[in-house]
């Protein structure tokens, strides 16, 4: 263990050093037990999902599965239109949201960062103000609007709603990202005979890729996890997204909740989020910290 704390860095002496090592150990112990607390619920859920259905419903519960079984997943698949349908629904909505958000916020971010036009500041402030207004307060009219547009119960309609609520953050993020790209690069490209769009597509997109990835992760996670709007807008069981489908699993048919299937569903829903986060952690945290520090 060569790790040293801030304090140890300045102080010397062998007793002090021993103290420092001890303190480091204590800190590791503390950090690790906290880590355990944070990860345990997810691990328990995943472990329960691979128990036998009877064991998953056992009173009192067991900690570790006595045998590994995927029967809970098979039972989960019997609910409604089957778990694959819900995975498809959630994935479709999330991907549509990601694509829509990226396109719209990249264009707008570029426009806000590089161009001058009348009412630009007013527009930008309005976009940001939308961040302050809870989308919950416009859900009722949105619901009626989607009904009138025949978009209720469509994955596309739901993703339109999600795109709208992702836009303020997306535009803010993309404008900041474009701001960090030196104008010289852009000018050089234009001198080479690129049109503006050409230049945006061929040159800038490469440079702002981190920003785009950040926007994409946020759009994906928010769409994947969103609950209230999906609960209201999706009224047919076959169109549910995963979180909504899970609440109906939880209600159970005729008062017979299936805990094993529920935890299988929770695991299926959580896993993509965690994988995505672990893979693209850097961008995710950048978005959070970038937004925070600059905000």
């Amino acid at each position, binding site marked *: *263990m060569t*790790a040293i*704390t801030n*304090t140890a860095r*300045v102080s010397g002496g062998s007793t002090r050093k021993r103290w420092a090592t001890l303190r480091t150990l204590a*800190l590791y112990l*503390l*950090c690790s037990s906290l*880590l355990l607390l944070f990860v345990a*619920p997810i691990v328990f*859920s995943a472990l*329960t999902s691979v128990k036998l259905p009877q064991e998953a419903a056992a*009173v*009192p*519960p067991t*900690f570790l599965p006595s045998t590994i079984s995927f029967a809970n997943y098979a039972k989960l698949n019997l609910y409604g239109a089957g778990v694959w349908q819900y995975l498809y629904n959630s994935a479709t909505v999330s991907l549509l949201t990601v694509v829509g958000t990226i*396109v719209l916020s990249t*264009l*707008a971010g570029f*426009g*806000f960062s590089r161009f*001058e036009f*009348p009412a630009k*500041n007013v527009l930008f402030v309005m*976009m940001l103000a939308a961040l*302050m*207004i809870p989308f*919950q*307060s*416009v*859900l009722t*009219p*949105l619901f*009626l*609007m989607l009904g009138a547009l025949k978009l209720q119960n469509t994955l596309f309609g739901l993703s*339109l709603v999600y*795109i709208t609520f992702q*836009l*303020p953050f997306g535009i803010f993020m993309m*404008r*900041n990202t474009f701001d960090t790209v030196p104008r010289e690069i852009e000018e050089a490209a234009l001198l080479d005979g690129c049109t503006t769009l050409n230049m945006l597509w061929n040159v800038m997109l490469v440079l702002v890729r981190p920003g785009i990835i950040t926007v994409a992760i946020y759009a994906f996670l928010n769409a994947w996890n969103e*609950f*209230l709007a999906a609960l209201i807008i999706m009224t047919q069981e076959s169109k549910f997204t*995963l*979180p909504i489908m*899970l609440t109906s699993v*939880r209600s159970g048919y005729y008062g017979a909740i299936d*805990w094993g299937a529920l935890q299988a569903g*929770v695991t299926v829903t959580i896993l993509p*989020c*965690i994988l*995505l986060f*672990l893979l693209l*952690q850097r961008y*995710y945290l950048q978005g*959070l910290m970038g937004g*925070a*520090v*600059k*905000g």
Partner: protein
Amino acid sequence: MATMQAAATAPTGKRSSMARRRQVIGFLFVLPAALFMLVFFIFPLLMTVWMSLHDWPLLGTPEFTGLANYITMVQDRQFWSSVLFTTQYTVLVTIPIFLLAFVLALLVNLPLRGVGIFRTGYFIPVVIGLGTSSLLWVWLLNDRVGIFNTILVNLGLADKPIVWFAQKYTALLAIVISVVWKTVGFTMILLLSGMQAIPDEIYQAAMVDGATYWGRLVHITMPLLRRTFALALVLSVIGSYLAFDQFYIMTRGGPKNETITTVYWIFNNSFVYFKMGYGASLSLVLLVILTLLSAAQLRILRDDTTY
């Protein structure tokens, strides 16, 4: 919001046709997003105002009723008690989040080897949806099949499984535990970014003066984090004020409607009782409350700290 100033700095070029063309192009870039916001945000917002002046059933024709909904609201005991409850919840959830997040941020800011693993681990619950995490916790906390209760009993912290959702305050505590678990990582990262933005020189100067770790914490870190604290506070308070998923899933507003939040009550009116006009008027009140909260907190934000 400091970025608005950045947007205002405009290079004033010659008024040529080229410049005008660039204006149009720039506007066109922004247009799609602006139209989106107009159609799916500004328009619904105005429609909320319009609906709030109507008796607007789900089936049947809306009827203009002026301010009747607002008058009903004044006498709606459940609404005001839900506002009160939401406030209570916001306070009760924000305090532990901040305390714990601060401790966690300090820990993951230590120069320990492998500290990134801890940071990632503490943050993982943040990427899970609130709805999903509520379904996870409602199972963990169940009095029969829940492992949380088994652990409490095994550790001797409870003599029999606790029926968490039977009483208002145990239910609230259960929800606070689950929400802290899910969101504390978010606040932790915000605070961490604030800590890392504090220039090293300040600490070094303090160390030369012989300041201890705790001394530096109290005299440097905490004061300089004020702005980050304020930002995190705004986000946390607004988020808590809009609480719905966890209550809808974990308590269903019970026991005896004592855990109905404001958004929950709006949802009930609009989508269970189908009083959409009334729901709209409640939404507007919520919006006003939140705007006031944000404005108040933005004032704190504007009180800039310079490093």
